[in-house]
Each structure stands twice: as structure tokens, then as C-alpha cells.
């Protein structure tokens, strides 16, 4: 039961994006299309899982005083790994994610989970937490990317769904930087409304 909680926490209740609003930069920058969103989600999930695992495995070995630098080294290692592998096997995606891959290093979600969770829990729990948080991050990216890609390009995952007429003249701003901020504001407001409804119902 508690393992399930470790796993599912990140989906909604502790969703790193919508609840804690961490890791905003890649989220806002790369939610322009489903393709980017899923790519970034996968990359971040990979790093999250393995940094969580490595840190919880070594949590008794790493001296407390230098734990943060150690975490950073681990995280940077996994990030570089993803970077290289992606460049080798998915060059197009690698190109469109650009600078945000190395920036996963400073993604507060990952360091945050290391410090708040992996550092105190078993390897199994941490693994599940990593997967759960990763899925939560990816889901959030996908939600945002769905809205932005459909509004801003008239397509979803590259498939034209609103017709050519719309695709010729979409609400372009949705995939420009302002669109990311404004839509994020409305999504957060929607969450606030849903939460309030739930509270009242309870």
C-alpha cells in the first residue's frame, strides 16, 4: 500500500509541476509539442530514477556534509549519459531539446527528490518514487503540450487534427513563450478550482 503511494504520489497529489511548481524552465520551454514533451519527460524520468536509486543505495556511505555535491555529481553523470545516448541514437530529438538536456542537472525536481526522498528511503521506495515522479512530470508536460500544440499548431503529436484551415492560421501565441506562461496560469487556476470543489464535497 505504502509502496503504491510512493509510486503514485507524483501523478497528482504531489505532482512536481502543478503542485510544487519546480522544474519550470524545461517544462515551459519544451511543452510546445508532444514530441518534445515526451522526449524531455523520458530524459528527466531516466535521470530521476537512476539518481534516486544511486543516492538511496549509497545513502549510508555518503557523508552528510558533502551529500549535496555528491548528489550533483551523480545527477550530472546521469544527465551526461542521457545526453550522449540521445545524441547517438535520437539526434533529431537531441537537437530540439537542445540546451535543456544539460539543464536537467539543476532541475530542482531531481535534487529535491534526492534530498527529500531518496536520501531517507529504501532503494525500492526510491525507485518507485523516481518512476512515479517521472511519470508525473511527463504527464504534466504532456497535458501542457497537448493544449499548446493543438492551439498553436492545430496538431497533436504532429498529426493535424483541427484541419488545414486552422493549421494555416493557428493561435500562434500558444507555442510562443507568452502562451506557456498564460496557459500555465489557467491550468493552475483550474487545479485550484477542482481542489476547492473537492474540499467542499468532502
Amino acid at each position, binding site marked *: 500500500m505504502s509502496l503504491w503511494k510512493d509510486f503514485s504520489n507524483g501523478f497528482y497529489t504531489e505532482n512536481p509541476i502543478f503542485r510544487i511548481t519546480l522544474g519550470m524552465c524545461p517544462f515551459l520551454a519544451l511543452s*510546445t509539442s508532444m514530441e518534445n514533451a515526451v522526449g524531455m519527460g523520458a530524459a528527466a524520468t531516466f535521470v530521476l530514477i537512476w539518481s534516486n536509486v544511486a543516492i538511496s543505495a549509497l545513502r549510508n556511505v*555518503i*557523508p552528510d*556534509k*558533502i551529500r549535496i*555535491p*555528491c548528489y550533483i*555529481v*551523480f545527477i*550530472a*553523470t546521469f544527465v*551526461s*549519459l542521457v545526453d*550522449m*545516448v540521445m*545524441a*547517438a*541514437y535520437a*539526434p533529431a530529438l537531441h537537437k530540439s531539446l537542445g540546451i535543456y538536456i544539460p539543464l536537467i542537472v539543476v532541475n530542482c525536481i531531481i535534487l529535491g527528490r534526492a534530498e527529500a526522498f531518496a536520501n531517507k528511503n529504501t532503494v525500492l521506495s526510491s525507485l518507485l518514487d523516481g518512476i512515479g515522479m517521472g511519470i508525473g512530470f511527463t504527464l504534466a508536460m504532456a497535458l501542457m503540450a497537448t493544449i499548446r500544440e493543438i492551439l*498553436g*499548431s492545430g496538431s497533436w503529436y504532429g498529426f493535424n487534427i483541427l484541419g488545414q484551415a486552422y493549421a494555416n492560421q*493557428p493561435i*500562434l501565441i500558444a*507555442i*510562443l513563450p507568452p502562451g506557456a506562461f498564460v496557459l500555465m496560469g489557467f491550468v493552475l487556476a483550474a487545479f485550484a478550482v477542482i481542489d476547492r470543489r473537492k474540499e467542499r464535497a468532502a
Partner: protein
Amino acid sequence: MREMLKLGFILMAMSLLCAAALGYVNGQTEERIAAQREQAKADAMLSISATLGDSLSFDSLAVPGLENPYAETGRELAVVEVLSGGRRVGYVFTAYRKGYSSVVETMVALDTAGTVAGSTIIYQSETPGLGTRYASPDWQGQLAGLDGAAVALERDGGDISAVTGATVTGRAVTGSVADGVAALGQAGLFGDGGAE
């Protein structure tokens, strides 16, 4: 002090471990990454030069007295000659100019008379749905067969239609190509002098 040393040692050890792991992965992927990069560019060069001949090969060409029309973007005009069976059949170069929100990089292939054989945008970061439309093969297709030095938008007296509302990017593409071709021409690469 000993404590410090110990901590430093542990951190160092961890870092080395990580570096070693990365070194290993790097070894596994380095060639592939490099090859990917080369391949991407080679494919691009090959595809725009396809009409110049069969079994093409490329070689960089030092052109004496070549002016650099791209100084304001901080780039240089570098020419590659296109060989078919050891014979020079054309040139490839990359043109640069600031478009709407980025420096647009257009790779162009010319025959030895300066006529465009093909072109492709290899880098741009223009407005999606607007400036980016210039990268479409359809639009690029308009350049093929034109005299490179005369490539221009209709607005500017040429033959090429601009994407509505994105003249800036269009000018960057056409203007930079024409500039490059003109520079090549001035250096005497076309016509008799060029054909050797």
C-alpha cells in the same frame, strides 16, 4: 583538517568513478555521434547537389581573393567544390543573414555557371508557422534553376514569392544566397575561369 581531507577524498573518488563511467559511455557513443553529425550534413550536401551529377564527392576549396559578405554575422564564406568523377561540377556554400529572430543559415549548391542546383536551410530559429515556412522543400524548390546572383523576392524585383507576413526571413534567405553567389562570381569561379 583530516576530516576535510577525508571528505575531499570521498568526493574526489565519487567524481572519478562517475567520470570513468562517462568515459566508457563516451567511448561507446562518440563515433556514432560524430558519424550522425557528419551523416546529417553529408546527406544535406548530397541532396541539394543531386542534380549536378552522379557519384559526387566534395572537397574544400581555397578561393584566393574571395570576399566575405557575411562579416556582419561573424561568419565566413567557405566554399566546397563538388566533383563528379574527379571533374568539378559545382560548388556548395552556406549563406548567413539575420532574419527575424535568428541568423538563418542556408546551404546552397550551384553549378559551375552559378545557377542554383538546390538549397536547404540548415539552421534557423524563426517564428514557428511564419519564418519557419521557408524551410519547406516546396519553397526551397523555387530557387532551383535560377541564376544564383539574381535570387530575390518578387517584392524586391525577383521571381520568388515570399511567405505572407514574413518578408524579413525571406529577404534573409534570398539576399544571403545572392550575396554569396555574387562573391563567388567576383572571385571568378563561374564561366570559363571557373570551369578551368
